[in-house]
């Protein structure tokens, strides 16, 4: 029997499985208070899924004050839409608006790596479409357990195939991302997915259900039993799932993606946007129709009535609660004027997309859902979508933080002889975290749509937005979780600094920030301390750099037992470049006789470094110093140098230090170089320190004086550190020795195929 509102009124004392659905006693009591009665099964399903950690951000919301407190009017001026919308939107000039967002799909990707990763890509792409934009490219920052752990192969192969399988079939270039290994991610791989899209600024569509009488149309795939209870699983500490309160057998919390349907849905949506017949649009992601109907209704100016029995189904016997919670993929929901419904249906028919009118915008402020004429949901939509519980979780600096910071890397044995240094360079180049990502990125289409200007292994991905003018955007994501573990405030600012630098190093001007904050359990005060420090570090860092945070995502409960992952606030920075033809490539050797200049200062900084991790398995001390004013200056100089044609190649220094940057810049450019270290500083420190704020640039000899004078005048330290040597085929480092490129290439490129090929 279907549990209707009338039935609920008549049976106030009926037991309800709210705890199994993840609701706490006081949360359930609040629902009863809001409704003035017990919720129906369908309402309970809606509230439980929408009030889950994943959908309601109930543990993190209280810290969002840091974003608003650190966004100045100048920063806001660039934003056309910000936090609270499906994705942030920024003005990149010439009438173009760009939208981008990062989202996590961590837990599903551990349960079923291929589909978890695939649907992660699908979900973020629909978020971008829901802003009215054409998706342009995707990127995937990934984190895995120990490279030699037996389960890592299963997880990595599945996730990489899933990202590729979905994205390639969808026709979006994959232009970058990260692959990072650390044992802390063993039972909790991180799959973060980023999508960037563009539109003319006037075409921005927001998720609003406005205008009484307007029709609500569900279009895309049919609704099945996919991932019912999945959203609760996403953010709960167990994988037990739940039964939707209906007694159906336990269903897998797995959704299967259909990239072909998504591709057709993209083209269909773009045609609908172009015809101007969409008043409001919302994607169906986690929490499916529960989320889409309540968010659309609460963002509009009226109520909404939905006839749930009209929803096209893929499975038989689905209950209203199941239909509302289904996470079937590749579905969108639009609000359309009655006079445009026919035109809307014609476009959908052209693309073979199933479209069904399921309801309309009503007067008043209630979301009413009926099932064959009987009311099964009657709620104030804001209480479902936005007025969920909010917790101020206890915060406490971890007990081991002091001892961790005290156990610095100073005592670790360092190589000192030329032979030892040479061997260390090769060992580091071949280490799983520094080795070439080609085995992974070769499984992703980076060419489709013809706008990719830079992709892996460049520091940023770069996409041309306007074919006429060449205006484009650059994107980078970064996070060193070890730095964040050692000092979450500084570590998060270092992630921001690196992403900012990676954008600037291509000649683009950093413009806006998104993030995906991956942490352990919010019920652990030590984790909440890391989280609070990270949010504050990021917010205050963005203020110093003058670029706004436009959106983000939080993923909690990334832990196995009581052991949390390294805190991993992945930071994405978007930059704009007025003409992609002046991009700065990563590889040296484009012009004969280039000089290599090292910009920035190198200090003895090894806390959290790749060298300490790889060679000594050590994590302790303090992360490198962060100087955001310096990062900003560095960025300005790189952009100015690119504009004036003074830089022929540039590569930032980060994991693995100068040695790794030299290895990569030579191998990518396929030329050798001669490098002179500073006789007044320890060669080991110069080669492997991970001091922030540094970039290696190659400048044509004719521009060297002009460029270095600019650096000096603006107070940016620089050092002439070598020359490109097109003839030698060798990276020669004075005082260390010669490293022939074939030997370097074998070390750098052999690791991932040997592990996973």
């Amino acid at each position, binding site marked *: 029997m279907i549990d209707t509102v009338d039935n609920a009124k008549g049976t106030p004392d009926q037991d309800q499985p709210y705890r199994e659905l993840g609701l706490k006693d006081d949360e359930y009591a609040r629902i009863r208070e809001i409704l003035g009665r017990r919720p129906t099964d369908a309402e309970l399903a809606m509230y439980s899924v929408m009030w889950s950690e994943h959908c309601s951000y109930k543990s993190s919301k209280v810290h969002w004050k840091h974003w608003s407190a650190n966004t100045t009017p100048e920063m806001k001026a660039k934003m056309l839409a910000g936090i609270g919308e499906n994705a942030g939107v920024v003005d990149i000039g010439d009438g173009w608006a760009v939208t981008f967002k990062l989202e996590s799909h961590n837990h599903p990707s551990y349960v*079923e790596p291929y*589909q978890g990763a695939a649907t992660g890509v699908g979900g973020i792409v629909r978020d971008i479409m829901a802003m009215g934009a054409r998706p342009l490219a995707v990127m995937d920052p990934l984190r895995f357990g120990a490279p030699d752990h037996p389960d890592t192969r299963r997880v990595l192969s599945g996730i990489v195939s899933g990202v590729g399988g979905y994205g390639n079939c969808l026709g979006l270039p994959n232009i970058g991302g990260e692959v990072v290994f650390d044992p802390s991610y063993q039972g909790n791989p991180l799959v973060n997915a980023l999508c960037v899209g563009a539109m003319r600024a006037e075409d921005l569509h927001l998720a609003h259900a406005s205008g009484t009488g307007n029709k609500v149309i569900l279009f895309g795939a049919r609704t*099945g039993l996919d991932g019912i209870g999945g959203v609760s699983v996403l953010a709960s500490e167990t994988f037990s799932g739940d039964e939707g309160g209906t007694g159906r057998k336990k*269903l897998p919390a*797995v*959704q*299967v993606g*259909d990239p072909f349907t998504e591709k057709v849905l993209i083209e269909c949506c773009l045609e609908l946007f172009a015809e101007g017949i969409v008043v409001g649009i919302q994607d169906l992601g986690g929490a499916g129709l529960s989320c889409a109907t309540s968010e659309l209704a609460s963002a509009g100016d009226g109520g909404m009535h939905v006839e749930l029995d009209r929803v096209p189904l893929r499975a038989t016997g689905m209950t209203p609660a199941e239909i509302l919670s289904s996470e079937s993929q590749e579905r969108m929901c639009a609000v359309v004027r009655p006079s445009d419904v026919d035109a809307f249906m014609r476009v959908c028919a052209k693309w073979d997309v199933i479209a069904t009118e399921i309801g309309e915008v009503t007067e008043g402020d209630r979301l009413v859902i009926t099932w064959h004429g009987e009311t099964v949901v009657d709620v104030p939509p804001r209480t479902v979508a936005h007025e969920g519980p909010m917790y101020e979780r206890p915060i406490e600096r971890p007990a081991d933080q002091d001892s961790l910071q005290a156990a610095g890397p100073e005592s670790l044995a360092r190589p000192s002889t030329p032979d030892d240094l040479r061997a260390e360079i090769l060992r580091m180049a071949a280490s799983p975290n520094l080795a070439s990502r080609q085995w992974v990125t070769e499984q992703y289409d980076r060419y489709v749509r013809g706008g990719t200007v830079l992709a892996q292994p460049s520091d940023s991905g770069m996409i041309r937005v306007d074919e006429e003018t060449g205006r484009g955007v650059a994107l980078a994501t970064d996070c060193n979780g070890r730095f964040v573990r050692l000092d979450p405030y500084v570590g998060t600012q270092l992630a921001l600094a690196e992403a900012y630098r990676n954008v600037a190093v291509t000649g683009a001007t950093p413009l806006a920030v998104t993030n995906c904050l991956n942490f352990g359990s919010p019920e652990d005060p030590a984790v909440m301390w890391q989280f609070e420090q990270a949010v504050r570090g990021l917010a205050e860092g963005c203020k110093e750099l003058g670029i706004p945070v436009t959106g983000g995502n939080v993923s909690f409960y990334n832990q196995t037992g009581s052991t949390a992952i390294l805190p991993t606030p992945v930071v994405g920075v978007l930059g704009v470049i007025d003409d992609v033809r002046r991009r700065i490539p990563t590889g040296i050797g484009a012009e004969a006789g280039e000089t290599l200049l090292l910009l920035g200062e190198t200090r003895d900084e090894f806390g959290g470094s790749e060298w300490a991790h790889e060679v000594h398995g050590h994590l302790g001390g303090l992360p490198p110093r962060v100087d955001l004013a310096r990062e900003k200056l560095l960025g300005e100089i790189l952009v100015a140098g690119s504009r004036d044609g003074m830089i022929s190649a540039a590569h930032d220094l980060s994991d693995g230090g100068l040695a790794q940057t030299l290895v990569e810049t030579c191998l990518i450019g396929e030329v050798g170089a001669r490098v002179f270290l500073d006789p007044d500083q320890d060669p080991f420190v110069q080669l492997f320190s991970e001091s922030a704020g540094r970039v290696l640039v190659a400048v044509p000899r004719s521009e060297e004086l002009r460029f270095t004078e600019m650096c000096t005048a603006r107070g940016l330290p620089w050092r002439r550190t070598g020359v490109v040597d097109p003839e030698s085929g060798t990276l020669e480092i004075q005082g260390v020795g010669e490293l022939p490129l074939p030997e370097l290439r074998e070390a750098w490129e052999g690791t991932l195929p040997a592990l996973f090929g």
Partner: protein
Amino acid sequence: MARVVVDVMPKPEILDPQGQAVARALPRLGFDGVSDVRQGKHFELEVDDSVDDETLAKIAEGFLSNPVVEDFVVRRVAS
């Protein structure tokens, strides 16, 4: 030696885009009356007599199929 057939099918509740694509194409090709298509995998294993049913089930469940999204059936057929 015996021949063992393992058929692996997507679970009924799991979306099967492959089957759906075929089902949608059939009417366009003039074949009416096919209401649903599901696409799976068919394995034929040549096994010697020492391999018992329990082992075959393990092979099917742990390797040939993905129990999260697929069901399987193991059959011994005449060799």
